[in-house]
């Protein structure tokens, strides 16, 4: 490796080191971008409908909830935690939005849907950070309980949404793109800024990398854990609002297995499940890749059951590439 102390600052080995560092840091993003590019070209060639404005605008809307939650999930996974409850929170938020909007104020419904997500996230975070429980177990319990709650308040029926205030959140258009797409763009930009350019983002990485070191540096690690899990709850609530508004209906079943899609997107983007390393842009591209796969396969008129199979296979290939190539390129010492 090229990191000897005696190397003068302008040495060739040093520049090679800097280049390796760039690849090291961005390997996940680079590899998932390559996968997306290949899929994009493949579907464009193989189908007439894929590379049309209409289709791409629709894909950009469909993937929005996954993109939005994947950004928040990147923070959680980078701290070395996980949030399995986002799909159930999405379902509860969507159902609550529709039910309250039907019988009362649309604004109250919107606020309530978001506060529900925030509240559940806060409970997840508090139990993990201050109750010293594993986030896997805490959010697994929430996955079950919150879905049950959603079924309870809806009796299993879906509720139509007719509010002129809420529907544009799913179907409004600005400059050719739907509102959910714009929300996703804003969330990605904000997430990228916070992750890479604020102390909070730095501490998220440090918690996953070496929490003890951060604690010794005088930072309250528990507050960071509480914050990231609260954030996924809130954002999952937002995803529920987007989904329900787009479908003009709130169903307690929406968001089933959504958590796995989000986690897949994050891992595809190069975020380490063990924590310490994450990429907001990678997660966004990962989510778009999953959306492009399901859209492309449908357009190819492949049996719809092939969609999850293909997504699973691509996940395995991406992780194998990450694990093998990554260790080879970075030369990381532990």
């Amino acid at each position, binding site marked *: *490796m090229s*990191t000897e*102390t005696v*190397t003068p600052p302008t040495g060739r080995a040093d520049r090679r*080191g800097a280049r390796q560092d760039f690849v090291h840091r961005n390997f996940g993003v680079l590899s998932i971008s390559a996968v997306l590019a290949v899929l994009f070209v493949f579907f464009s060639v193989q189908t007439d409908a894929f590379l049309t404005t209409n289709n791409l605008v629709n894909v950009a809307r469909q993937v929005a909830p996954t993109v939005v939650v994947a950004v928040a999930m990147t923070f959680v996974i980078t701290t070395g935690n996980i949030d399995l409850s986002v799909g159930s929170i999405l379902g509860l938020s969507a159902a609550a939005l529709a039910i309250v909007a039907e019988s009362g104020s649309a604004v109250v419904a919107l606020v309530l849907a978001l506060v529900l997500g925030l509240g559940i996230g806060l409970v997840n975070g508090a139990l993990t950070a201050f109750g010293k429980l594993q986030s896997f177990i805490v959010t697994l319990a929430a996955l079950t309980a919150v879905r049950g709650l959603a079924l309870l308040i809806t009796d299993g029926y879906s509720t139509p949404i007719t509010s002129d205030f809420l529907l544009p959140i799913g179907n409004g258009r600005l400059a050719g793109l739907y509102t959910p797409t714009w929300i996703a763009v804003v969330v990605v930009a904000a997430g990228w800024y916070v992750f890479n350019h604020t*102390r909070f983002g730095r501490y998220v990485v440090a918690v996953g990398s070496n929490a003890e*070191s951060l604690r010794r540096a005088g930072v309250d690690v528990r507050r960071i854990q509480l914050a990231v899990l609260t954030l996924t709850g809130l954002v999952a609530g937002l995803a529920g609002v987007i989904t329900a508004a787009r479908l003009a209906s709130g169903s307690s079943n929406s968001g089933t297995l959504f958590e796995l899609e989000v986690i897949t997107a994050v891992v595809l983007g190069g975020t380490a499940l063990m924590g*310490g390393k994450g990429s907001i842009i990678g997660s966004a591209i990962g989510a778009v890749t999953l959306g492009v796969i399901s859209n492309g396969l449908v357009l190819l008129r492949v049996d719809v059951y092939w969609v999850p199979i293909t997504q699973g296979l691509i996940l395995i290939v991406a992780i194998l590439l990450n694990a093998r190539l990554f260790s080879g390129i970075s030369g990381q*010492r532990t």
Partner: protein
Amino acid sequence: MTSGTRDLSTPRVEMRGIRKRFGALEVLRGVDLTVGRGEVVGLVGDNGAGKSTLMKMLAGAVVPDSGEIRVDGTALTGSGPRAARAAGIEMVYQDLALCNDVDVAGNLFLGREIYRPLSRRLDHKRMHEEAAKDLATLHIRISDTRQLVATMSGGQRQAIAIARAVTFEPKVLVLDEPTAALAAREVEMTLQLIRDVSTRGVSVVLITHRLQDLFEVADRFVVLYEGVNHRQMTPSETDLGGLVTAMMGK
């Protein structure tokens, strides 16, 4: 607190009559230790002699059963890690100090990052500049503060850990086995760093099994044997063999 009451003869660290019992085992049985300003003390003793426990007490992580700890004449006994750090005690623990996935500057500034107040944006540029300056002051040669710590050698990481402790401007730096698991050249680098730090007036307590290192940097050896002060000597009074003999309680 009135200034001027502390004359230079007040030792930086004064530990008196320190006792500690863990269950049936009395690890420390009335140990004394004084460290002067800018002095490098080599704390030696066989395994179980009580060196690490004594230093954990200084760092506030362990509370003594009895005895007194003073830093610059101010009592610090049993007031916890935070108070110890506020009093200027920094301890470098091997491998616990750094975040592998954060770059050099990020590690040096962990917990006290520089950021612009309005946008909350980290001032990466200034942190890298100041990190490079800090490293240069300590003669630590790391060409790029943007390198991730994970990609660096053990010696470089140890140097960064020490540099980080030094940037807190401690009065006393406690190093527990800083040269274990380092290559020969890296050991020399770390020892030079210890010399540099002590010439800046920082007192250093060094615990190491590499006794030959102590002869290079220590001003004084304090030998513990089974929880009591056994011997105290200077490098000129003894040699490696003499030190080993003292460690064995003879």
